Structure formats: C-alpha cells, structure tokens
C-alpha cells in the first residue's frame, strides 16, 4: 500500500512537471520556411535549431524536396528561402544566391598506390569497368577495386554529373554509405579507388590513415581549392531568395554565413564559405 501511494505521488509530480513545462509566451512566433535540396537541408536544420536558441520567438521550418522545389517555392512565395545545391542557371539569375558552404569531393587511393594522377577519361574508364587493372593507368599489375556510393547520396550525384554518367553504367565492387566507411574501405584495400567529401578525406589523411587524395585536372584536392571554386568536383550550397533579403530572412542568412556555424558546416563535411 505504502509503495502505491509513493507511486501515485511520483505520478502527480511527473504530471505537474509536464504542465509546468508548457512553453510560455509563444504568442508572437515568427516563422521562416525553407525548402529545397536534400544535401543542404540537414545542415540548415541544425543551423536553424541554433538560430532558434539564440532568437527566442522564432521558428525555422526546413523541408527537403530537391533544388528545383527550392527554386519553385521561392518563385511562388511558398517558402521565404530556398536551398539549392548548385550554381544558379542563367534563367534563374533573377533570384539572389547566398553561398553558405561548399561541397567538394576528391578521388582517393590507398597511400601505397604509385598512381599520382588520373584524367577525367581514365576515371570514367575505371568506373565503367573498361579499365580493370592498375597497370593500364601506370600503376602496378593488380585488379582495381571500384568503390561507389549508395543511391540517393549527394556525393554520388555530384560525381556522376562530373563524369556525365548514369549510376547504372558504373560497375562497382563495393558500395558504401557514408564518408567514413568509404575512407576505411580504401585504407584497408591497397588496390581500391573511391571518392568522398574532401573535408573528411583531408582530415583522416592528416590523422595517419593510409589514403591519398588525387588532383583533378592538375588542381590539388584541398579544402582551400574547394573554397576558392577552382577544384572541378565541387559545388556551392546556396540559400536563395526572390528579392534582396530583409527582416528575419536576412538575419538567418547572415547567421548561416557567419563563423558561428562553421563547426556545424564542418561536421557535415562541407567547407565553410568564408571570404573569397
């Protein structure tokens, strides 16, 4: 009996706490809707959460649905800000783009692989299975292990765009999910070739994993070259608005481009936009 009274007391306490928790003063919540690229959405929702904490009374609503949805929603006013994971096309130049980060991917090989550079054509041949031995591209006599990304990943999309290939044309030996799995796969296989976000690869290579990043078209695969836009396998992640932003939208865009969120950007293996 005693224990059931204790239980009842405890339950009342919990209920009371639940009611006391009721958020106060949400009478004037300012809401900002962002829609668009699924590459950008996870990063922007985290930025949004931090923004909400610093600006009580605001709500950042982030929905993904592809870059084209971002463009459409901003054009017809459904969303205040769109998220687009590429440069604006010429016919979209009426919109304002605000780059919050850069996404760059690098080709990685095992550190012991003597191949120092591959042309775009050679990479294409390796990934489509036309070249299956490192000897053909100046390496040792060994079968190439082709590491590809799972369907739906933005790195896959960017890579396919660069090579102008469809995913079904690629003949992979290993398919991986996230960057760290890709890096470990290549680090554990001396004859593997893979591609991952440059931020992640550079970090792991610096911390002693036996991988190396290949230059593309003679440009070193570094975070700096991604940031200054010279690295070919890179793209900007943009927030777009119909007019020059004002009010809450402007505040949010400024926040998303500020140094305050660089840790979030880097946690997603993107490169902070910074000053160009």
């Amino acid at each position, binding site marked *: 009996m005693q224990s059931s009274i204790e239980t009842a007391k405890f339950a009342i306490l919990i209920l009371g706490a639940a009611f006391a928790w009721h958020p106060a003063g949400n009478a004037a919540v300012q809401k900002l809707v962002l829609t668009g690229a*699924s590459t950008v959405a996870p990063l922007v929702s985290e930025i949004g959460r931090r923004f909400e904490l610093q600006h009580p009374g605001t709500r950042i609503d982030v929905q993904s649905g592809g870059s084209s949805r971002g463009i459409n929603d901003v054009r017809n006013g459904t969303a205040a800000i769109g998220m687009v994971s590429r440069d604006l096309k010429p016919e979209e130049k009426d919109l304002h783009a605000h780059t919050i980060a850069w996404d760059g991917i690098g080709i990685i090989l095992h550190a012991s692989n003597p191949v120092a550079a591959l042309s775009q054509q050679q990479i294409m041949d390796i990934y489509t299975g036309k070249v299956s031995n490192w000897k053909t591209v100046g390496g040792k006599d060994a079968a190439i*292990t082709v590491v590809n990304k799972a369907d*739906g990943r933005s790195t896959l999309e960017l890579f396919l765009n660069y090579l102008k290939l469809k995913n*079904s044309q690629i003949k992979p030996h290993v*398919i991986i*999910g996230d960057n760290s799995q890709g890096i*470990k796969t290549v680090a554990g*296989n001396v004859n593997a070739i893979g591609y991952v976000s440059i931020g992640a690869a550079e970090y792991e290579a610096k911390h002693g994993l036996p991988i190396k990043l290949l230059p593309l078209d003679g440009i070193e695969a570094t975070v700096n070259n991604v940031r200054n836009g010279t690295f070919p396998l890179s793209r900007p992640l943009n927030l777009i608005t119909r007019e020059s932003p004002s009010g809450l939208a402007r505040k949010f865009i400024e926040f998303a481009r500020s140094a305050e969120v660089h840790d979030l950007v880097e946690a997603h293996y993107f490169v902070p936009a910074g000053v160009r």
Partner: protein
Amino acid sequence: MTLWKHTISSRRGYVDGLMLWLLHSAAIISAAVVLLILLFLAVEAWPILNHIPFSHFFTDASWHPGEGMYNLAPMLSGTLYAAAGALLLAVPLGIASSLFILYYASPGIAHGYLRLVELLAGIPSVVYGFWGLTTLVPLINLVQPPGASLLAGILILTLMILPTVALTAHAALSAVPDEYIRAAVTLGMSRWGTIRGIALPAAKAGIAAGTILAAGRAIGETMAVLMVTGNVARHAHSPFDPVRTLAANIALEMPYAMSDHRAALFVSGLLLMTLVMILWGLAAWPGKNIHG
C-alpha cells in the same frame, strides 16, 4: 465474520478482474504493435505499389532507384545466402561448443568457456562490423579482391549467431533429465553414444528453437553486414562476390531517399518482414510434431 470474509473475496475478485484486464490489454498491445508495424510498412510502400506492378520488383533489370529500376531479387538472394551460410557454420559449431561445455570439459574450463561465449553474445554488432571492415576484409582481399564479400558477411554473421546457438543448445541439453543420462551410463553406453542416442534427441526441440532464433538474427542483422559485404546489388556467383542484404539496403539508402525510392525501400522492408514470418511459420511446424 461472514461479512469480513465476503469483503475479502469480493476485493480479491476485483483485483483478479483488474489483473485480467491489464494482462489482456498488454497482450492486445503487443499483438497490435506487430500488426501496426506491418500496416505502417504497407502504407509507406503504397505510393509505389499503386503505380508499379509488384512483379517489377523481381523483373526489373537491376536496382537503380534513381533511374526507376527496382529489382529486389539480388537482395533477397544475398540475404538468404548470407543467413544460410552463417547457419551452416554456426549450428554445428554452436552445438559442438555446448557439448564440449556439458560433457567433455573439466568444470573449471567449462565455466570459463561458457562465460566467454556469453561475452561473445554481448558484443555490439557495430564492433563486429568494424573489426570485419578493418581486419577480415583486407585478409580476404589478399586471397581474392575486393575482399568485401558474401564470405566476409557469412563469417561475421557466424560469429554473431554462434553464441545464440551455443547458449540455447546448452540450455536445452542441460534440461535433459539426469535420469536419462544415468540410465544410459548404467547400460554401459559410451559418452558419444549417450550424447547421440539420448541427449541430442531429447534436446532436439530446444536446439531447433535456438537455430530459428539465430536465423532470425542472421536475416535481420544490418550494420555489421553492411560494413563487410560490399553492398553491390547483384546476384553472387561465388562467396568472394559482393552482396547486398535487404536490411542493409534499407540502412544504406533510407537517409537520403525520397518519394518512389523511399517507398521502394519500404517494399524491401515488407519483403524482409515476410521472410521472417515464413521462417516463424516453418519453426512452428516441426515444433508441433515434437510436442504432439
């Protein structure tokens, strides 16, 4: 006095009624959760099932959801190969381990060995996967590239389900009545004769149940398998070929899947669920014969 008695009995009746009601609702909730999961899978899969005939999931050229091709058959074969291979290795090894503990090892060694097997059961699957990715896969790669393969998946799964088989077999064999064993000894039967003729047949049902449990785990295991099997959605022609399992397919692609692609992943979830239900159906079948 009578009044007192009456009060107690009516109170007891009330408590019984309350308990009955509580237990009924607990049972209904547990059953409903399974049905709700099925319903949820079906609802999420519906957007694709209503405009693509179900046969496409087995006749499309390949699994390239980005290009509208949704063949799940390679994943089904991959799941079955990996689970069957692991069972083929883990069941004999597991039963042998439990026989060793019960009938051959000295008490000290048996105790230590049992603790070791229990520890093996407690290791999180990601740890197995990580070990597989950094140690096992490079080793297989030396024999036959690319290393990430069906074989690696089978070996990792074997390690993971071995304790399940060993511990359930151990429990089933320990439950064999002592009189049976003593009678066999008095009849002058050899140790192996006792095991083969008395202990194993008597523990058959328990060992079978443990095997089914292990099979369920092998089919559903995701992270460890995902890390070592290479995940190429093609039918394997040798143990050195990469495979993708149904569970790995979901884990690999769900985070970034949208619309039809997402719905197709729920179809692979439905297929996985069906596979597990068929397995459970099979498990119930011999069980009835044994008890009847």
